[in-house]
């Protein structure tokens, strides 16, 4: 089959490039790569219409492994190139790949404005709470006290919560998944892709070499049930091995608390129902973390996509101008306004 054959059903293979994958054994990046390669064929977008754009970092090697168009750009700037690509050709299905260092340290500003502008593309932020590629310095998501080569006595700055940051920036679709969660990750990939606007996904990714077990407190098998809250729109926020623990709004105050259905007269009706269109709820959920609370996974926020995306609005102006003024005539443009003739005799 030559690449020009009519689109047939796509398979995982169509998205696997010929490049050898070069991450450390056991790196969570493998699982994310695999989830993406397995999920993309579902969308029916052909590889040549698909573009992966990354910055610099271990995670940012991702595009090399996808048999699509790919641009491994410079540190922190992937959102800017993605913006240019999407504006130049809005038909392309654009994915931005970034890390907690790439996207939130050097590239925080571009991520902010990408989210604010709301282009129709997807961002996957690989959060391993460390700089992998440069050998283990702490990152903006590292927890306080992290000992690394650059913080031998422990880091002192409070970590950023990527989802809260995204919401603060005006992000309209915010979701989370765990690297090795072969069920949860494809779900948010799908939802982000369906979403008309910028789909932001934070993937909790284990770096066995420099930050092993950073998320173990909620990813470990033994604790998963009690520490993971899988969100579903319109469903009560229940979790726990028996599915009987839930979140509710502390009466009259703007705070969440954990309740157990069946205890103290609590029924399922008392449990808060997830409304993914409620930004304030998403903000509250974004900040929950074990041990006090479960971690909220899945789609935290999906604003009703009423607003036109940035590229539609911007390019719409071009179309409107064209319709109104006709295709630009450069010779006419040069002659617009005051002009005068100098004759041969003049």
């Amino acid at each position: 089959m030559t690449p020009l054959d009519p689109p047939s059903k796509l398979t995982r293979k169509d998205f696997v490039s010929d490049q050898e994958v070069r991450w450390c054994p056991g790196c969570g990046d493998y699982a994310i790569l695999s989830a993406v390669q397995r999920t993309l064929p579902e969308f029916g977008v052909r590889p040549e219409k698909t573009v992966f754009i990354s910055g610099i970092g271990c995670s940012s090697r991702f595009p090399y492994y996808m048999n699509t168009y790919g641009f491994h750009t410079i540190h922190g700037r992937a959102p800017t190139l993605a913006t240019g690509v999407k504006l130049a050709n809005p038909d392309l299905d654009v994915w931005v790949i970034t890390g907690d260092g790439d996207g939130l340290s050097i590239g925080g500003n571009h991520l902010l404005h990408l989210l604010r502008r709301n282009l129709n593309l997807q961002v996957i932020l690989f959060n391993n709470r460390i700089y992998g590629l440069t050998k283990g310095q702490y990152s903006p998501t590292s927890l306080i006290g992290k000992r690394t080569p650059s913080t031998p006595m422990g880091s002192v700055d409070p970590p950023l919560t990527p989802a809260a940051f995204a919401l603060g920036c005006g992000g309209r679709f915010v979701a989370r998944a765990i690297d090795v969660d072969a069920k949860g990750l494809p779900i948010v990939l799908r939802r982000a892709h369906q979403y008309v606007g910028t789909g932001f996904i934070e993937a909790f990714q284990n770096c066995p070499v420099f930050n092993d077990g950073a998320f173990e407190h909620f990813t470990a098998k033994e604790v998963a049930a009690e520490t993971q809250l899988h969100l579903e729109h319109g469903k009560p926020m229940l979790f726990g091995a028996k599915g009987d623990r839930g979140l509710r709004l502390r009466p009259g105050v703007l705070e969440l608390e954990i309740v157990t259905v069946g205890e103290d007269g609590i029924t399922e009706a008392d449990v808060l129902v997830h409304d993914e269109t409620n930004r304030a709820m998403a903000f509250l959920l974004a900040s929950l973390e074990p041990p006090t609370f479960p971690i909220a996974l899945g789609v935290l926020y999906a604003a009703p996509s009423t607003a036109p995306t940035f590229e539609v609005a911007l390019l719409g102006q071009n179309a409107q101008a064209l319709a109104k003024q006709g295709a630009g005539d450069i010779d006419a443009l040069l002659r617009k306004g005051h002009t005068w003739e100098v004759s041969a005799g003049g």
Partner: protein
Amino acid sequence: MGALAYEKALETGMDTPAARQETDREALDSVVIRFAGDSGDGMQLTGSQFTDSTALMGNDLATFPDFPAEIRAPAGTTFGVSGFQIHFASYDILTPGDAPDVLVAMNPAALKVNLADLKRGGLLVVNTGAFTPGNLKKAGYSNDPLEDSTLDAFRVLKIDISKLTLQAVEPFDLGTKEALRCKNMWTLGLMMWMFGRERESTVHWLRGKFAKSPVIADANIAALNAGHIYGETAEMPSGIGGYAVSKASLAPGHYRNINGNEATSWGLVAGAQLAGLKIFLGSYPITPASTILHTLSGLKNFGVVTFQAEDEIAAIGAAIGASWAGSLGVTSTSGPGVALKTEALGLAVVTELPLVLVDVQRGGPSTGLPTKTEQSDLLQAVYGRNGDCPLAVIAAATPGECFFMAIEAVRLATKYMTPVILLTDGALANGAEPWRIPNVSEIAPFPVTYRTDPEGFHPFHRDPETLARNWAIPGTPGLEHRIGGLEKAKNSGNISYDPDNHHQMTKIRAAKIAGIADDIPLQEVEAGPSEGELVVVGWGSTYGSIAQAVRTSLRAGLSVAHVHVRYMSPMPRNLGELLRRYKKVLVPELNNGMLVKILRGEYLVDAQALGKIAGQPFKVAELEAAIRTHLER
């Protein structure tokens, strides 16, 4: 005759009395006028209206707007003074002129700042109405210069323009503040009378500008006419009267005024059309480059997409992305912005994507003098990147030439798959000149072709002649590939850490840029002998001053030639040989010596620097003096 009658007269094309006196005018070959006033006084508008009508009169002209720095100062202070100089003549003009023959000073601060430049014996027009004790103090005058000996060396026309304006616009019932705003039109009217310009274009322009408030338009027109009639009717001091500057014999054709940023913007659009591409401009506002963003934002029906990014890095990043996706990526900025784009420029070099970066240079270093002109980004443009990172650098010499150099930038960028830096500067950006409008349809197109054939495709396969790699854009079936900032294998473009490959790729990238030298015009001598004592080598906006100074020196019998470099990197093949034909090489630049460094290193000629770093163009006299000195040495 009331204001309205006047206007009527104009609109019906009836001659005003002034027009009838035309023959009495003293004939002049060339005049330099500087309008100076408070930032709020509308001097830039006054200047450009005068310019338009002067162009319509068939004079050749050049202008130099001199804005106050990027602040809005309280009225009346010296740092808030705004100036606009126009030089017009009956022959072809090369510079906005050194010292003004006529200075219009709208307030004491304007007088203070500009008087030193006025030619001895020159004409000073002052608005006495603004010479209040408060304004005098703000300008730092302890005595009223109108009363002491300050103005002894000049011919002075003292007029209470403020009061006369208020009278002229009285019928329109404006507030005093609004009424006083018309005083620039009154002044313009007077100057139009003095130099026999037609008011028609200004009336037309006022009608358009104030279409939504016709009363304001009427008031301004009334003021304009009142100033004009004042010239005709008032008793002028002896030696002051109407002047005539006859038409210049310009090459026949269709003309317009154009400033450098307009010309650059339009040139980019023309270039993109010649290449068959859409323009994507990623930009972040910065003085004096912002108007390129503004101009291109108004050309959406030309398929121009403009994106005001969050910063300069995002601007170039988006432009690179757009280029990869098949548009012509463009980014416009000034020096500090170029500094920020440095890293991304390297990415564009190594991924070999077409990109045009327009650097409208301003006074540096750092924030420097944002509204002033300078040529001090040359070394940054040529050398300022990490690693061996060659790209093409070209520079426009005049506002009108910005149009052609922008086209050239597009041609080189797309033909060689490389970033091209186009250097202009604040003086070109804002300076206007009459420009013979070219027919774009007569310029040979240079359409690009994207790669589409998957057969044997490798992203870094090159055209054997240009060494340009093929341009394969996302969306094309079968050409899926990955590029990036790491060194890449010679053909496949896959990451390569192979030592020899890196050496070869570095040499190939250098050879590709060096090869452009075969595709550009040989260096010509602008004026003067083709060998001899002294050659003056310039680049960029110093063109006019150097050409004028060399012309004058040649007339004075000196052996001096003018060479003006437009291709800064790579340079024309014959440049070294050409320079060696002269005993001495003098390189005037608006910086502390940059081109001179390159010429010395490249050609081992003992070129000498003549640096002026004052945020202002060379005066012709300064260059004439330097030419003499260097010939005498």
